[in-house]
């Protein structure tokens, strides 16, 4: 993974000093609440319902075991012994003390980490495919590009006070696992006919209040121009993005208002001025960064592991885990393994300090000392020998990290919701827990098969409910918590936006509604169909009819959706 040089280290050290002074001035009353807010937000510090929340950057989801041990230490020393992995591949601590945040930043800097620009109206953490570098369908390894973007966007002086937050994602594989269509800028790394590497540039995707898929504004941008082109996009946005209404301030609204073609024209016009400037990437700089992402020292192995098939036949629990949590790897004899943070009864994405330490040990023993955080809020060991799978499973199981549910109904993506977040309209964790309890039968769960269930506690969509095959959104009606349910959303190459099925439900009714949706699918599915496939074939109506059958709301629905 990327290793800081003297300059990277100096920048994070100077950030610690700067933020220490800002915190001191705030506590001394020299900085007002309003003036301190953007400063602390650009350091990932929110004021939450109970306490501040600190969001620590995990650039493109990549961590070393040493860094994870430090996170465990911080969670134990400055928090309540656990952290929450977020849908932006970051780690959130829910209980740090504002005055001690500078100390946390100092510890982070000691392991080449920070919380820079994890919040606020600036360019946020760059995200990418958690299987980068190991996925069999990879075209270009996105990690060096993500790191180059990280450096460019860190303290970019012109783009620190944008109209609204700004998220960039990169994908380099045939199957998009970085949800690039849902980002302010989505970059697809591709090769042209000559075999040269370039980027397909999408702009204006986003979830939130007005969900929108990104529009392609350039089919092929030579990679050397990645930074100059982003600069042109950001400059157009910074100048013309709406600042009069924060709900309309994302770049997607500007792209929509102008039309993608006109927006593209303005970007191209801006770009003509900057494209041949010194920010063009050099091969030398690319090579320097890429040298950090070379292949680990893989052994030459056979893909056939003696005894593995027998184990799988004998041990159903192990077989279930391999089926769900073990993924293909481009190198024979290796696999990528997802450690599930979705055990029933535990808030999705939550991880205790002990679990972090266990994962660090497992990473050292089985996966070259590195791991990744996925945007589905799980942890991934990307380079595990197939011969070690059984041993790894046993150890992960002891730590409560081997729930064999990856991609299944209980692998719920969920924001912290109203239990923690002051933006939320409704709680989301108890909803996730109730659904996990309802579908706790593993055989049934495996029979239902692949399905994405996503929960957001409010319109800000941190739980990505728009792209869940089933999406649940917390809404506030007359100061009561209600849940709006949508179906048919999807991420990846065939992204789509979910359709709201009708009037909202009270919390206690949600698991029953999910059950009815699942039953409808089971009744209609053909042999090979996943939930989303059946839904796309038969449409939303049979699902709606089943859910609202016999309820008074069945009539209301016609009005609402009329």
């Amino acid at each position, binding site marked *: 993974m990327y*290793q800081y*040089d*003297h*300059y990277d280290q*100096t*920048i994070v050290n*100077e*950030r610690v000093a*700067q933020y220490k002074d*800002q915190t001191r001035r705030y506590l001394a009353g*020299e*900085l007002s609440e309003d*003036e301190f807010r*953007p*400063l602390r937000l650009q350091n990932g510090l929110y004021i939450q319902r109970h306490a501040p929340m600190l969001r620590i950057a995990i650039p493109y989801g990549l961590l070393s075991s040493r860094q994870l041990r430090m996170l465990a230490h911080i969670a134990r020393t400055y928090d309540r012994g656990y952290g929450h992995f977020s849908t932006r591949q970051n780690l959130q601590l829910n209980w740090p003390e504002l005055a001690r945040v500078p100390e946390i930043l100092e510890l982070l800097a000691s392991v080449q980490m920070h919380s820079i620009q994890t919040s606020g*109206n600036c360019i946020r953490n760059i995200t990418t495919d958690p299987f980068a570098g190991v996925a069999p369908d990879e075209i270009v390894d996105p990690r060096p590009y993500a790191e180059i973007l990280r*450096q*460019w966007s*860190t*303290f*970019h*002086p*012109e*783009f*620190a*006070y*944008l*109209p609204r937050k700004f998220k960039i994602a990169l994908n380099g594989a045939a199957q998009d696992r970085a949800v690039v269509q849902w980002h302010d800028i989505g970059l697809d790394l591709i090769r042209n006919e000559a075999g040269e590497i370039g980027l397909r540039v999408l702009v204006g995707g986003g979830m939130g209040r007005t969900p929108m898929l990104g529009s392609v504004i350039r089919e092929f941008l030579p990679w050397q121009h990645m*930074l100059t082109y982003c600069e042109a996009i950001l*400059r157009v946005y*910074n*100048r*013309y993005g*709406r*600042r*009069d*209404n*924060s*709900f*309309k301030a994302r770049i997607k609204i500007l792209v929509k208002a102008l039309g993608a073609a006109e927006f593209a024209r303005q970007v191209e016009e801006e770009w003509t*001025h900057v494209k041949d*400037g*010194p*920010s063009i*990437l*050099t091969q*030398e*700089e690319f090579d*320097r960064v890429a040298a950090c992402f070379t292949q680990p020292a893989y052994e030459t192995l056979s893909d056939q592991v003696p005894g593995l098939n027998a184990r799988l036949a004998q041990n159903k629990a192990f077989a279930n885990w391999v089926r769900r949590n073990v993924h293909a790897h481009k190198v024979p004899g290796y696999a990528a393994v997802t450690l599930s943070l979705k055990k029933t009864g535990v808030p999705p994405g939550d991880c205790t300090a002990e679990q972090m330490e266990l994962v660090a040990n497992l990473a050292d023993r089985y996966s070259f000392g590195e791991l990744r955080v996925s945007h589905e809020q799980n942890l991934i060991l990307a380079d595990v020998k197939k011969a070690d799978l059984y041993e790894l499973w046993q150890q992960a199981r002891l730590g409560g990290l081997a729930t064999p549910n990856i991609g299944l109904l209980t692998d719920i993506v969920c924001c912290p919701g109203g239990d923690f977040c002051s933006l939320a309209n409704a709680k989301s964790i108890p909803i996730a827990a109730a659904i996990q309890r309802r579908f706790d039968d593993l055989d049934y769960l495996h029979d239902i098969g692949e399905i994405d269930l996503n929960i957001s506690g409010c319109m800000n969509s941190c739980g990505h409910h728009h792209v869940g095959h089933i999406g649940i959104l917390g809404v506030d009606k007359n100061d009561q918590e209600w849940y709006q349910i949508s179906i048919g959303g999807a991420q990846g190459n065939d992204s789509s936006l979910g359709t709201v099925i009708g009037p909202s439900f009270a919390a206690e009714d949600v698991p029953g509604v999910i059950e009815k949706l699942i039953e409808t699918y089971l009744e209609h599915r053909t042999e090979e169909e996943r939930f989303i496939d059946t839904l796309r074939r038969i449409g939303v109506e049979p699902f709606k009819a089943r859910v609202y059958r016999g309820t008074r709301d069945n009539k209301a629905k016609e009005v609402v959706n009329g």
Partner: protein
Amino acid sequence: MAKLIRHEGIVEDEWSVLRFPAKEEPLRKQAGKPVLFKLTGEASATPDEIANLAVPEGKTIIPLPLWLARSDELAARLAAATLGVWIDSHESPEALAGSLDDLNRFAVIAVNFPRFIDGRGYSIAALLRTRYGYRGELRAIGEVLLDQLFYLKRCGFDAYALRTDQNIDDAARRLRDFSHPYQAAADQPLPLFRRQARGLTA
């Protein structure tokens, strides 16, 4: 005279900034919240306000709409180097650049930050420096706070009229918050990877 940060030093400001008289504007709301910003391209003043604003003697920084409408009458002031112009965050640097063969005939150009969270002024400054060839004093006015200084400097500002409650003695330090920024910007046309040999041994 007010104090000003020029480069890294504290100086007496010999210029005054001319603004349109404050007027009662109806409170606009969007989504239930008061609108704090003018949209890019929105008008700043009416033709009457522009025509009636008197330009005082002495070194004066005038609003852009006034300059655009009355540049003929102000030519002598410009030649005498007693005229500067200020541009608001929603106004167009292109209009300013198009109004004169050489922006460097202005002794000073100021960019207004109506609120410190309005980031348009950074792009305006970057354009004036890197696209329109302005080399004279570029001054940040309005809600200019200590914690913006480093970014302002990087975007090409070299003078800062800090809001009066700010600790001006702290400014020089804030201008140096970071020693080796990554990106190219107006103050440093080369990105770090072209300035320095980078690598673990550095």
